[in-house]
């Protein structure tokens, strides 16, 4: 099954990739695309269904106006032209997760066309053209039981959940993106990341790749450097994480290069990405030959968005992530790179809010990018889902700045908040975490440490200041870490009559 791969450096030394991305986004509307069923995720199978989304004989679709509005909002945010007249079309094919054995989609008359999205990669801007943004209905979800692959072939039986059938789905298709060279995989990932952030900022979807509300197909072709014609492309489906987007493009580049190196032709086909192994495998060649027999959906009337209404939607396009990043870069005094790191970690809003709550931007950034991202990773959640929020982080920063918490104590305080969900002050009080900076209280501990290790004290007196660390450690242990190590060190040296 595993294909021969060419070393990545060799690929990019000889070939130029062209990439293209098709992204499917489930819209976060209250109801489905063509009926009134709830569009929420995670309900018991086949409980959010009705005659329409089950495609029962006689049932008819009615367009969800909010889904159209969300699509126009996405189109406008992607700098598209909004069609003044368009239609839905039927895409005909048989599959058990399709209640009607056709999908209501859009074909040659999409709602939004010809836009663009700029993405930042390594400090430079890549301009990604958007071919179209169209609206369609999602299919049901099949689970194939038995068989080794989890695919329908070889399965003993299949379970179908139609809760997802009819959920509004927006497809965003890029124009082919040439000229990115070795950066192609990174550009692909950066585009999907940027798109995800943009969709999130529009509030039109929860864009969770792990729940399938954002799904990606990647198109890749290679041509020899300097060639005037592009190569044959493959379409890799089932690419369901940001990391996978990058891996899938990279893998396809390496695989196609090996094919071309061997003097063979790349087959135009659908391929499947395997999350576990990182490889792509050929889909059934039959799929490529499918004739969907598109024709205008006769059960729906054409959609003709009123220009005034489109303008009113345009006025509601919020500040987009790229604009916001530039503004925040200024406000937070962060570099583009630092902002990119924050964006990748999903903490831009958290840092901004923490800064707004009074923390110095650099401190806010350090907390969220460092310790808190680590905690989120450990817990397997997004930083925004942690039990600690910007207000609490700002309070921790303030306590540190006031000298009441050391860095170590501050982390313990954060841990306490994460554990208990209480606020910082309550955690500090309950656990007795206040830093001991009272010199009188510390003096006794210092004396005890000197008395306990006279030979170390003697070394210090003789000028070997570095040995003070052992005594500082003893004091810190004795005060259960609540002492300020700097103060302790100064007290020890004072006591022994030594200066640094």
């Amino acid at each position, binding site marked *: 099954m595993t294909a021969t791969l060419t070393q990545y450096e060799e690929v990019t030394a000889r070939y130029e990739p062209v990439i293209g991305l098709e992204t499917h986004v489930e819209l976060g509307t209250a109801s489905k695309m063509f009926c009134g069923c709830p569009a929420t995720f995670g309900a018991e199978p086949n409980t959010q269904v009705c*005659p329409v989304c*089950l*495609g*029962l*004989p*006689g*049932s*008819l*679709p*009615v*367009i969800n106006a909010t889904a159209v509005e969300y699509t126009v909002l996405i189109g406008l945010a992607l700098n598209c032209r909004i069609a003044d007249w368009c239609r839905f079309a*039927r895409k*005909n094919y*048989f599959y*058990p997760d399709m*209640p*009607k*054995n*056709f999908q209501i989609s859009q074909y040659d008359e999409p709602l939004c066309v010809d836009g663009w999205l700029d993405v930042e990669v390594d400090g430079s801007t890549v301009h990604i053209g958007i071919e179209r943004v169209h609206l369609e209905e999602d299919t049901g979800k099949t689970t194939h039981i038995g068989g080794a692959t989890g695919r*329908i072939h070889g399965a003993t039986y*299949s379970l*179908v959940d139609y809760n997802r059938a009819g959920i509004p789905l927006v497809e965003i298709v890029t124009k082919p993106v040439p000229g990115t060279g070795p950066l192609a995989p990174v550009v692909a990932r950066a585009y999907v990341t940027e798109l995800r952030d943009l969709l999130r900022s529009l509030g039109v979807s929860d864009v969770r790749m792990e729940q399938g509300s954002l799904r990606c197909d990647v198109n890749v072709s290679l041509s020899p450097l300097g060639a005037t014609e592009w190569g044959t492309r493959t379409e890799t489906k089932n690419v369901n994480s940001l990391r996978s987007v990058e891996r899938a493009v990279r893998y396809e580049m390496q695989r196609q290069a090996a094919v071309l190196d061997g003097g063979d032709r790349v087959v135009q086909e659908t391929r499947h990405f395997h999350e576990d192994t990182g490889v792509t495998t050929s889909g059934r060649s039959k799929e490529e030959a499918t*004739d969907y*027999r*598109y*024709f205008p959906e*006769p*059960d*729906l*009337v054409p959609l003709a968005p009123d220009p005034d209404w489109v303008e009113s939607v345009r006025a509601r396009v919020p500040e987009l992530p790229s604009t916001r990043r530039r503004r925040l870069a200024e406000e937070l005094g962060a570099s583009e790179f630092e902002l990119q790191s924050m964006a990748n970690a999903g903490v831009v809003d958290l840092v901004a809010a923490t800064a707004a709550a009074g923390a110095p931007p650099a401190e806010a950034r350090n907390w969220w990018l460092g310790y808190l991202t680590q905690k989120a990773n450990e817990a397997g959640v997004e930083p925004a889902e942690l039990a600690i929020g910007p207000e609490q982080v700002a309070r921790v920063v303030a306590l540190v700045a006031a000298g009441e918490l050391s860095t170590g104590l501050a982390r313990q305080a954060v841990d306490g908040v994460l554990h208990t969900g209480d606020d910082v002050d309550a955690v500090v009080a309950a656990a007795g975490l206040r830093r001991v900076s009272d010199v009188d209280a510390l003096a006794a501990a210092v004396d005890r440490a000197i008395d306990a290790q006279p030979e170390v004290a003697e070394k210090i007196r003789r000028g070997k200041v570095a040995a003070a660390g052992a005594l500082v450690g003893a004091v810190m242990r004795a005060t259960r870490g609540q002492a300020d190590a700097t103060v302790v060190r100064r007290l020890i040296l004072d006591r022994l009559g030594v200066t640094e």
Partner: protein
Amino acid sequence: MADELTRRTAAELAALVAAGEVSAVQVARAHLDRIAAVDDRVHAFLHVDRDGALAAAAAVDARRAAGEPPASPLAGVPLALKDVIVTQAVPTTCGSKILQGWLPPYDATVTARLKAAGVMILGKTNMDEFAMGSSTENSAYGPSHNPWDLSRVPGGSSGGSSAAVAAFQAPLGIGTDTGGSIRQPAAVCGLVGHKPTYGGVSRYGLVAFSSSLDQAGPLGRTVLDAALLHQVIGGHDPADSTSIDAPVPALAEAARAGARGDLAGLRVGVVRELGGEGYQPGVEAAAREAVATLEKLGAAAHEVSCPSFRYALPAYYLIAPSECSSNLARFDAVRYGLRVGDDGVRVLEEVMALTRDAGFGPEVKRRIILGTYALSAGYYEAYYGQAQKVRTLISRDFAAAWRSADVLVSPATPTVAFGLGERVDDPMAMYAADLCTLPASLAGVPAISVPCGLSDGLPVGLQVMAPALADDRCYRVAAALEATAGHPLIDEVPPL
């Protein structure tokens, strides 16, 4: 008494029930008894819902007993419902084996409106499978028989409803018309049948054959009855995006006005292309006589030419099969209806294929294959695309005709009822039964068939077409013609 009740018009029955002279239950029983007595010969019904009809009748009576006004002008009137209209918990087969045993979990909008109006649904009537045909011979459950001559077809696809109404099993029937399936059976059974303006009656719950053409409409023995029924089922429905958001014209009023027999100032266009070769002389003669009658009532008739009408048949047989090939894809054995070959070994595609092979009849298969081909990449423009252009041309012919005519008329069918078995092996001959009715279907304009005499003892219908949303004109002209005859033609039907 019971026999007398079944001879009454819907309007008369509603009045009797409203006045308390008979109960709705008595009316329902009389018709159920009639069905029990004659349907073994007529075979109009696929399913008789005795309990449902009597329960609906009891509700009408209870409402009257409580002193409430009738739910509608048709409260307490029984009706025969074509089996392509979905009825909750009552079998709906569309005349097909593939839906055998399916109990729909919901009511069509038409069904719901009938129930809300206090109309008693007696049962579901026979039809050509998925409404594809002109004789009911494509029903998987055997054909219906024309009450005028049991060896002849009652028309189709709504032949079960037309046979039921003509056999006095019900005063009213619901049909659906895609290319003529209300008007043609009405014509050959001596009834009034109206295809509303496309979008005039909700399609929600009408199992789709060709979505851009299908319309449900009334069948009755008089123009007024048809108008009253149309008013009950018509009007905007948010569940059907193609439903027109406009008030239903005052149709019963138009029928009553027409019955007064004054058509002064009405411009009648006689369509040149809907006549001549292939038309029986007796049919053409009856239609000519009807036009002469309209002129006597004050109308001015002249010939109009609609040259694109001659392409209606080929255009229709590309558009309707194309849409049906997609609409009927859902019958796949996965969720409901027939399942064949599911032995735990065969894969899904085989079970789907075996089920569709066993579940669909030859005409349905023919049209699915035709439509699949017409929509295929590389053929789409030449077939489906071209047919849509013809459709536009036909609409333009109508638009041009409306400049000189308020209504257009033609025979409703080229021939009177043909014999059972006569055309089953000749699809083109069968398709020709819809020659007159196809243009109005493709253009989405309203058209009525009203009895205009007999030819060789069999009924002939005159088709009256009007501009979109002017359904009232159809009823007015039809009622004027009906009034001149003195009594409804159906009174002349020989006893069974």
